[in-house]
């Protein structure tokens, strides 16, 4: 069956979703199913002295740390987060116990009668306090991770430098705000626990539940249910609640359903790490950035979660798309008594790219030179080395991409016109950002930890089922993987089957994260399809392939040296804004984007990712404000934590350019996260252009702009 791989096809998952017949976790009703609701800490940091429970009616029970048969620690990377608080609590909202029973009203009544007696401990509520903690939450220095990367010769760079510029950049929380809140159902049958849920990573949940229950692998099964969005929020957190419902099912011997309400989900689940990034650049008389010192501090919240890897990605992206040969960057993930920071589309990169893009612009402005010329004269080229000394092997199309975006957006004409408009009080501005995203796990994750396996099974009627642990969560993975198989096997798409994964049936092809599903898993699907094709004449065939680290690449995980990623995708965004001179409200008048994601596996799916990622990035930059007061999140409702609506963003004009990656299926590279990364700096730069002020912090709130304007430019 010949078809162009990029040409869009109808997505198999969509009709049921539109018709409302797709079954989400909230639609499952098991026989005798019980409901659970979580008793949570109301203190940011305390010792639990005692818990007084009311007399429980028949059929109702409490599930807490005493009901964890295995290890009461969630295996994410380390083991620091308990399934149920173990004598201490470290953030407001930390789970202490589940109240389980049949009638939700009775459960609520029991919950309202439970009295927890706390002995308060002075909480650590900021990274500054966290870095000087008298009573650390974690280790001696209160950092979950403290890394340094360096390359080149900083001493010589400093000596040769003619200009030095230093700036500090700050980014806030961001909540994933998937449409479907977190939810899991645990079922215990004949010695085996099955967990159904809205998840990105079936095998993460499986590993965590096995350790939680102390069960052998064959006694734990995870089934993904139709998932209404993840954005990273269902990477780590489901391991926690998966263990909780497993314990509850084991104790009650009945199915137990735990589904979060929206406001609960906003308040207690993981979010994007707030960051403070200090960059100091050393520049020579030809305006080349000779060296850079960086200091990245992430607010990790109360437990380590995925912070170490988020921090690595932020550090490795700290020089942005610029070739800075001498570099020292320190990164720390600091423990605070706040909600746990976790995975979110971009995974450390949005913070780093906001910092470096603003930094480069500010340098140019300080030196009185054209920012585009300055950026382009320092830009990465094929053959340059990354922050960790890895080689950029493929062509980097950034200069062409920048030119294209400038043309699409009429950037130069607009810059001129806006200058004139400002004279009559019209505050328009346009900003441009350049960025990349490394596809797949950072460092040697794919090689040393995941070792993904993909299986294809062909039946005697010629139907081929793709057996992988990667999930369709709205991003189009099911269709993308099916297209790769169909194209390789040269069979019609209708012959390829993709079901939601069930760990009893699928091998561990790794989690649905890190923009890896197409580039890494898709490649394995392609390889498996090639193998299957050779045996097509057999009645029933099963083939399995496993990830092999590509030849010629190198990574030293102890020294953080070598190729942090095996492929890079690139992007250029331009955003045009208009600032209301009275209210400082910012209206987005235009968004233009060019991406190099290698070949597009499905143009409509790609466009969906581009539009969604950019809007999410613009929300991050503008209206998605989340702050805490004494450790309690203030924007706890969807009315107060606002994400953009279709009214807030104009039509996004985007194009693709293609430098294929030989290691990806049909030359495809990473896509999902890249699309979010560049929106925030482009937006902030547009506001700088409109107002002639310096922006060092996102979200850029009108409240802040008002203060800046009040205090005089």
């Amino acid at each position, binding site marked *: 069956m010949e078809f162009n791989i990029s040409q869009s096809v109808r997505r198999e998952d969509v009709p049921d979703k539109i018709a409302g017949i797709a079954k989400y976790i909230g639609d499952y009703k098991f026989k005798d199913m019980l409901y659970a609701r979580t008793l949570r800490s109301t203190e940011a940091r305390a010792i639990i002295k005692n818990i007084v429970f009311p007399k429980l009616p028949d059929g109702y029970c409490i599930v807490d740390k005493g009901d964890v048969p295995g290890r009461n620690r969630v295996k994410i990377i380390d083991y620091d987060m308990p399934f149920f608080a173990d004598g201490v609590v470290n953030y407001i909202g930390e789970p202490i116990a589940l109240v389980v029973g049949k009638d939700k009203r009775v459960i609520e009544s029991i919950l309202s009668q439970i009295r927890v007696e706390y002995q308060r401990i002075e909480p650590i509520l900021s990274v500054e306090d966290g870095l000087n903690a008298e009573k650390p939450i974690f280790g001696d220095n209160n950092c979950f991770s403290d890394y340094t990367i360096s390359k080149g010769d900083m001493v010589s760079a400093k000596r040769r430098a003619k200009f030095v510029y230093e700036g500090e950049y700050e980014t806030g929380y961001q909540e994933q705000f998937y449409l479907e809140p977190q939810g899991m159902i645990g079922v215990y049958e004949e010695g085996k626990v099955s967990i159904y849920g809205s998840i990105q990573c079936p095998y993460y949940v499986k590993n965590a539940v096995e350790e939680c229950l102390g069960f052998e692998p064959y006694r734990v099964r995870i089934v993904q249910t139709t998932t209404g969005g993840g954005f990273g929020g269902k990477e780590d957190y489901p391991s926690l609640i998966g263990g909780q419902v497993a314990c509850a099912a084991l104790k009650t011997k009945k199915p137990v359903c735990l589904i979060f309400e929206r406001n609960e989900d906003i308040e207690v689940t993981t979010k994007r790490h707030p960051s403070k990034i200090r960059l100091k650049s050393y520049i020579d008389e030809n305006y080349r950035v000779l060296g850079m010192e960086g200091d990245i501090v992430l607010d990790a919240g109360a437990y380590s979660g995925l912070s170490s890897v988020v921090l690595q990605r932020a550090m490795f992206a700290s020089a942005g798309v610029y070739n800075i040969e001498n570099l020292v960057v320190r990164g720390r993930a600091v423990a605070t008594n706040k909600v746990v920071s976790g995975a979110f589309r971009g995974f450390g990169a949005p913070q780093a790219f906001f910092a470096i893009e603003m930094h480069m612009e500010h340098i140019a402005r300080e030196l009185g030179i054209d920012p585009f010329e300055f950026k382009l004269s320092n830009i990465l080229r094929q053959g340059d080395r990354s922050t960790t000394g890895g080689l950029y092997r493929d062509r980097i199309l950034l200069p062409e991409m920048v030119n294209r975006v400038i043309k699409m957006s009429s950037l130069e004409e607009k810059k001129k016109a806006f200058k004139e408009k400002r004279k009559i009080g019209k505050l328009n501005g346009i900003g441009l950002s350049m960025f990349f995203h490394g596809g797949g796990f950072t460092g040697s994750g794919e090689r040393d930890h995941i070792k993904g396996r993909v299986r294809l099974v062909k039946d005697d009627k010629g139907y081929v089922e793709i057996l992988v642990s990667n999930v369709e969560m709205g991003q189009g993975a099911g269709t993308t993987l099916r297209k790769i198989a169909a194209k390789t096997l040269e069979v019609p798409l209708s012959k390829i089957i993709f079901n939601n994964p069930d760990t009893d049936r699928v091998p561990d092809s790794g989690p649905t994260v890190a923009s890896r599903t197409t580039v890494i898993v898709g490649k394995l699907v392609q390889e498996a399809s090639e193998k299957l094709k050779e045996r097509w004449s057999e009645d029933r065939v099963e083939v399995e392939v496993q990830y092999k680290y590509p030849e010629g690449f190198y990574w030293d995980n102890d020294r953080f040296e070598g190729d942090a990623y095996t492929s890079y995708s690139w992007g250029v965004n331009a955003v045009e804004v208009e600032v209301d001179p009275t209210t400082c409200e910012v209206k987005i008048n235009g968004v233009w984007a060019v991406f190099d994601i290698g070949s597009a596996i499905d143009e409509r799916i790609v466009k969906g990712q581009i539009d969604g990622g950019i809007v999410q990035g613009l929300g991050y930059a503008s209206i998605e404000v989340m702050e805490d007061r004494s450790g309690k999140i203030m924007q706890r409702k969807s009315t107060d934590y606002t994400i953009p*609506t279709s009214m807030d963003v104009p039509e996004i004009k985007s194009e693709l350019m293609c430098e294929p990656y030989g290691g990806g299926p049909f030359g495809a590279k990473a896509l999902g996260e890249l699309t979010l990364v560049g929106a925030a700096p482009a937006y902030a730069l547009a506001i700088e252009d409109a107002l002639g002020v310096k922006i060092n912090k996102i979200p850029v709130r009108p409240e802040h702009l008002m203060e800046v304007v009040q205090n005089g430019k």
Partner: protein
Amino acid sequence: MVKVYRPSNLKEALEIISSEKCTLFAGGTDLMVKGKSWSGLEPSFDRPVVFISDLDELRKIKINEFFLTIGGACTFTRIIDNSQIPDFIKEAFIMIASPGIRNMATIGGNICNSSPAGDCLPLLYAMDASVVLESIYGRREVNIEDFILGPGKNVIGWNEILTEVRIPTKNFKIRAYRKVGTRKSTALSKVSFAGLAEIEGEELKDIRFAFGAVGPTVVRSRRIEKKIVEMVSEKKLEVGEIKKMYGSIIKPIDDQRSTANYRREVCLRFVENFLMSCKWR
């Protein structure tokens, strides 16, 4: 299980609420949020509910040379779609929430919810609107500023229904309505503002300002408005002075949506812009 009534006319509704304390349910867009419970459970109402959104008596819109009268159960969409209502009044309703909510939410409900951020309130304050409250014993008319006492608090009795909103149909040549929300749609207000002025030739006859979401109730000062008229007639308008006067009565708070400084500054800038745009100078 909550007991519900679905009366077929106003009289029936008034009789029901005169015999027991009930919750009146017009559009429900605020009540359903307030009564929200764990999904799968019914929303919580502590009293019987009376649905009044379908009562014909409450869905009329009338206009004559003195008053625009809008029935209490008129939805925002009904108001927006009505051809007799002037556009500048509609503008305040168009900015509210989203199409779905505008199809359900009613003007009477919005007033009785008495939120300081209620989006139609600043305009109603500025227009000197009043509300008609009816019970089986008769009807009374109360000025909007006397009706609302504080957040969620007003003078309606248990046995009363807000049947009409009466807006004097005075024509204002200069008018401004602004809502500053957290986003462009489906947003709660950080600040809302209504400004009206009537000018004859070079003479300022009347000027009114009302500010929402910056205090426990909408802020309006007849004293300052009078002062502005005086200043203009004496050709001594000092905008800075006026801003200072408003600054002393607009006392917003910092909250999860905005800051006190921002809210106050935006209000004062709206006043300044409005005054600067008037052509008597």
